[in-house]
């Protein structure tokens, strides 16, 4: 008996603690785009031209590139995730959603550009001074205009096209001296195959990170001839000699508007497979650069398979409808339970409240920490799970009534019926769990979200039934003398009950 009290009080305390924690930490369920408005797009890579396998590394690289682009849009909480062989991009409440969807689907190109200049510390001081002038209200118009010009000159180029004569791009860290001014991407020598073709990743064959006693380096291998090593050598010659087209003596390797590396060109002529990009690379840096070059050699072309734009009004409306429907549903079910099962019905409602509180805590926590969004499919799944959760109670109550009808006293029926009923509930719930797990592993998108919430609700149902509903009824049966004297208050018709001690 004591154990029963511990269980019932314990699980109630955990549920209350969960709600308190959720409120205190400000966790809130993360709403899916269909409930808050925004854009989402599923991108799928086209098969690679030479039939090579699309590796996880290539996809991860694509995810990184897209993430950079989405971050560039300056939106709140964008999500870029890999789902098997596809990439899901979710952008809540973007202003120009159609544009955003186009942007994330563009193919990332690797380009080689001559370095015109690198920002110096002198430039940084000048820039900071100019920025300070603009920030303050001082200075006459001329001074301000001059400062504005300086700031503008050092603004990063937002969308650098290949033929732009001068672009300013950033290399890895945000340090000001990592800004490079770069020239246009040179045209390849042999314009026969693709007119207008430039020195891009297509001239590359592959790349690898290698290790020597000097440390890690990256070895790119170019294709033979042109487009290939000849074109790279043409640029290398200019940069090695410091021509006007490449006064910076370096070649910048750019992917999608970011500089991966900008090595100084040591010699004027390279063998196509004897190139070393050295630097104080760590193993990870070398591997990242090799991966970037490989990605550039075989850029993934991503095709939007499913794009969805939900206006915020539509999303809010759907959320309201779901909430109101859920609430009314719960009220109706509660009224029915109390009308039919009386006190037992109240226990069923409390049990529902407890599993609901635990569910809310978990969903809010998952949203906050795992970025797992509650979609309309999830909400509907939860509404449906109300009925199934109530069933656990109904199964027990009906067993109880059956035993009472069979001549047991209420107390002994309570003891006997619970294990039998719980065994039934476990059997049925395990089948639901199997459904949830299989669907979660083998499907994508909305169905997956649904499966997760179905599984969660099922597990919580088992917990609430075992730790709360069962013990609560047992406690009532022992403590409440009315259980025996006024069985109708428990939804058990008096006519059905054998008088106490009457059963053999």
């Amino acid at each position: 008996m004591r154990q029963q009290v511990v269980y019932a009080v314990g699980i109630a305390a955990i549920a209350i603690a969960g709600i308190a924690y959720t409120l205190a930490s400000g966790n809130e369920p993360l709403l899916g785009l269909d409930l808050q408005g925004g854009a989402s797009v599923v991108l799928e890579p086209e098969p690679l031209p030479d039939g090579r396998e699309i590796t996880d590394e290539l996809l991860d690289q694509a995810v990184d590139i897209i993430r950079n682009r989405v971050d560039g849009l300056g939106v709140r909480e964008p999500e870029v995730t890999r789902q098997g062989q596809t990439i899901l991009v979710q952008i809540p409440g973007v202003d120009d959603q159609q544009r955003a969807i186009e942007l994330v689907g563009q193919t990332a190109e690797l380009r080689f550009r001559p370095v015109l200049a690198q920002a110096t510390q002198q430039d940084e001081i000048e820039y900071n001074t100019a920025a300070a002038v603009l920030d303050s209200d001082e200075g006459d118009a001329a001074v301000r205009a001059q400062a504005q010009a300086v700031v503008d000159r050092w603004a990063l180029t937002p969308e650098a096209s290949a033929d732009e004569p001068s672009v300013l791009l950033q290399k890895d860290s945000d340090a000001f001296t990592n800004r490079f001014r770069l020239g246009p991407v040179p045209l390849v020598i042999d314009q026969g195959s693709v007119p207008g073709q430039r020195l891009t990743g297509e001239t590359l064959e592959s790349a690898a990170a290698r290790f020597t006693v000097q440390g890690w380096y990256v070895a790119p291998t170019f294709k033979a001839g042109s487009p290939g090593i000849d074109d790279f050598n043409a640029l290398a010659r200019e940069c090695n000699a410091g021509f006007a087209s490449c006064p910076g003596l370096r070649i910048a390797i750019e992917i999608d508007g970011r500089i991966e590396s900008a090595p100084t060109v040591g010699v004027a002529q390279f063998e196509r497979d004897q190139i070393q990009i050295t630097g104080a690379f760590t193993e990870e840096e070398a591997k990242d650069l090799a991966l970037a070059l490989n990605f550039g050699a075989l850029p993934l072309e991503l095709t939007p398979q499913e794009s969805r734009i939900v206006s915020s009004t539509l999303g809010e409306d759907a959320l309201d409808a779901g909430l109101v429907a859920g609430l009314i549903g719960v009220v109706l079910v509660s009224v029915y339970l109390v009308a039919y099962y009386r006190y037992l019905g109240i226990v069923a409602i409390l049990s529902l409240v407890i599993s609901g509180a635990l569910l809310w805590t978990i969903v809010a926590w998952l949203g906050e920490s795992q970025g797992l969004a509650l979609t309309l499919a999830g909400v509907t799944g939860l509404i449906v799970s109300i009925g199934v959760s109530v069933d656990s109670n109904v199964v027990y109550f009906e067993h109880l009534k059956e035993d009472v009808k069979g001549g047991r006293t209420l107390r002994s029926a309570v003891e006997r019926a619970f294990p039998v009923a719980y065994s039934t509930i476990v059997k049925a719930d395990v089948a639901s769990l199997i459904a949830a797990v299989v669907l979660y592993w083998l499907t994508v998108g909305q169905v997956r979200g649904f499966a997760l919430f179905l599984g969660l609700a099922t597990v919580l149902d088992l917990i609430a039934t075992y730790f709360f509903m069962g013990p609560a009824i047992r406690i009532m049966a022992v403590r409440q003398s009315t259980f025996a004297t006024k069985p109708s208050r428990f939804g058990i018709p008096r006519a059905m009950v054998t008088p106490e001690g009457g059963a053999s």
Partner: protein
Amino acid sequence: MLYRGEHAFDFPAMWKKGLAVSGALVAISLVALGVGGLNLGIEFEGGTSWEVEAPGASVADARAALTGTGAESGKIQTVGTDSIRVRADTDQAADVVEISARLAEFAGVDPNDVSVTSVGPSWGDQITGKARNALLWFFAIVAVYIAIRLEWKMAAGALVAVAHDIVISVGVYAVFRFEVTPATVIAFLTIMGYSLYDTIVVYDKVREVGGRLTVTGRYTYTEMMNLALNQVLMRSINTSITSVLPVLSMLVIGSFFLGALTLQEFAIALLIGIVVGTYSSIFVASALVAWMKEREEEHRLVAEKVAADNDSDGGTRRVLDDDVALAGIPAKRSPSATRPVRGQAAQRSDRANRTQQSARPGQPPKPRKKKKR
């Protein structure tokens, strides 16, 4: 009456009718699927759909506003009270943007207030393929699970019942040409889960009752099944009601909200599924198991013995050939028999279980016909 659990139905007597009803429904569903097929949404066929709030706008106006974009020949409909939905085959970004802009202009809203869903042509096949795969795995694993926890005949019965429910639910969509969306697929999966859940609850009761009564060797499997079904009936009704209430609320509430179309579609499918799922547990899944079990040696002998007893009992005859076993009731019964047909099995178990039958008020003592056995 039901509340007190005093009434006992003769379910096996209804199985035959149930079989006819189920057979007809499944046949209609299959024909509808075969003839018209399903009205698949863009998620399965590819294309784009737009939705915009435009109070008071008519379909004809919207069509006129879209002239020249290629969408004017597409499907245009009003949704809820004040919303327009357009569907076209294109998924080209340029077309999509153009049509969004036209619709925004037409409705007098910002282009960002137009909801757009665009799906590539091969995407649906992939999704459907994955779902089919998942379904097959699910069926296999659940069959093994039920075979272990209950028995393989019940696994077979449960799967047939689930298939029955899914076919009928999908059939409703085929007959009424409702649009099948991912939400509908989720609803079908929910139905599958619910149907299975319900069937297992019923089977577990059958197994419990069977475990208690088989050893007595006095009751045919069908009779035990009927007792179990009567015992579990109130549970089934109550659970259906508490499951249907939230769904009904979804259906009704959905019609008051603009963005709740998905919710409504979902609710319709679920409503059908829950009703059919509850029905099939009692009329399809149970009938099948009873039919299979009656052919087992153990139960067949009991059935023969019971039939023989009834013969010698005078007046009543129970001929348990295949046909009757399937229907689950004594086929020929003398109308003059004093034995009440209804609640026969329940009454027997009463006798087996209880010592104080006469203590139950409101039920006159019944003549005990087979004392000699």
